[in-house]
């Protein structure tokens, strides 16, 4: 079970690492391990150096009595599952102060205060929350162009999902619901077809076909989702958006 969790986590960590946004400069090694379907100790060592993802896994693991790379732990973090409900909000709050590199404590305090005691250590929640206070609520008055950039960035960075419409050699056409900001509130827009890169050498994509549901991170297809995972990512994304809108709503009064 532990090896699957390592590879699962690596699938989602790969693209932001490739873009230079997080983790050590070891992208070739991560890709190699994913293509070979191995989960060597060297891969664990690389994944432990991700400055935000790994601390989040530690938080979920210690709150739920799991090991960091038990499959359920990265699955809860990236996709969402009932495991997240077992992480006490006060512990998440303390974690956000003590273990997340560089976060401004005032910002963290204000953000949690605006959530009425609800928060989940889900990747999408972290992404939307990071933008919520400094940019959407208290940031400069944004032009339409700037607002579009912010929302696009949030949309690429969260884990989204969609149905494959067409399979190309290295690119998929995926029907997915993008994030949008409407009247100062976040929501998922109606589905649109977008292009996403994928690696056909990685196990689930060797047999990918139209109709499959894939998860996406920075316009890159990470994995195929099961029905259960699709239901969970939909549920927890909706929770995350609702919580961040609650914060935004409190700030606009």
């Amino acid at each position, binding site marked *: 079970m532990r090896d699957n969790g390592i590879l699962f986590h690596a699938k989602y960590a790969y693209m932001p690492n490739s873009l230079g946004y997080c983790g050590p400069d070891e992208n070739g090694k991560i890709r190699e391990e994913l293509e070979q379907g191995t989960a060597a100790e060297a891969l664990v060592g690389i994944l432990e150096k991700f400055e935000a993802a790994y601390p989040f896994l530690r938080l979920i693991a210690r709150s739920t009595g799991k090991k960091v790379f038990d499959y359920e732990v990265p699955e809860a973090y990236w996709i969402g599952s009932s495991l997240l409900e077992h992480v006490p909000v006060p512990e998440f709050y303390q974690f956000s102060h003590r*273990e997340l590199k560089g*976060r401004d404590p005032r910002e963290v305090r204000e953000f949690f205060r605006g959530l009425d005691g609800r928060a989940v250590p889900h990747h999408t929640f972290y992404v939307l929350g990071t933008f919520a206070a400094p940019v959407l609520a208290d940031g400069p008055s944004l032009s339409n162009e700037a607002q579009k950039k912010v929302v696009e960035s949030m949309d690429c960075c969260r884990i989204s999902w969609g149905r494959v419409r067409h399979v190309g050699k290295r690119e998929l056409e995926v029907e997915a619901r993008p994030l949008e900001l409407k009247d100062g509130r976040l929501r998922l827009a109606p589905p649109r077809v977008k292009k996403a890169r994928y690696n056909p050498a990685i196990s689930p994509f060797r047999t990918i076909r139209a109709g499959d549901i894939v998860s996406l991170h920075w316009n890159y297809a990470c994995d195929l989702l099961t029905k259960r995972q699709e239901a969970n990512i939909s549920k927890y994304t909706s929770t995350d958006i609702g919580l961040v809108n609650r914060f935004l709503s409190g700030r606009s009064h």
Partner: protein
Amino acid sequence: MCIARVGKVVGLSDGMARVEFFDGGCLGGVDLGVAGGKVGSYVEVFGNLALSVLSASEVRNRRRIWSEVRKAAAEATHL
């Protein structure tokens, strides 16, 4: 997974910035279109987007937090 990182704008090219981060990393192609900023500014970056320009006191505060958190993370890794 991304993380909000703080760093100094050290160069500009075609409207995109090169930023050197406190953690020693460096990233080109940072978009300053939302936050503003110029060469010498300290910015908070998420993905490739600068979210805000930090004042000198905020920069000092972030450096202090960064070093405390790095120490705590090192201790946690060795537990």
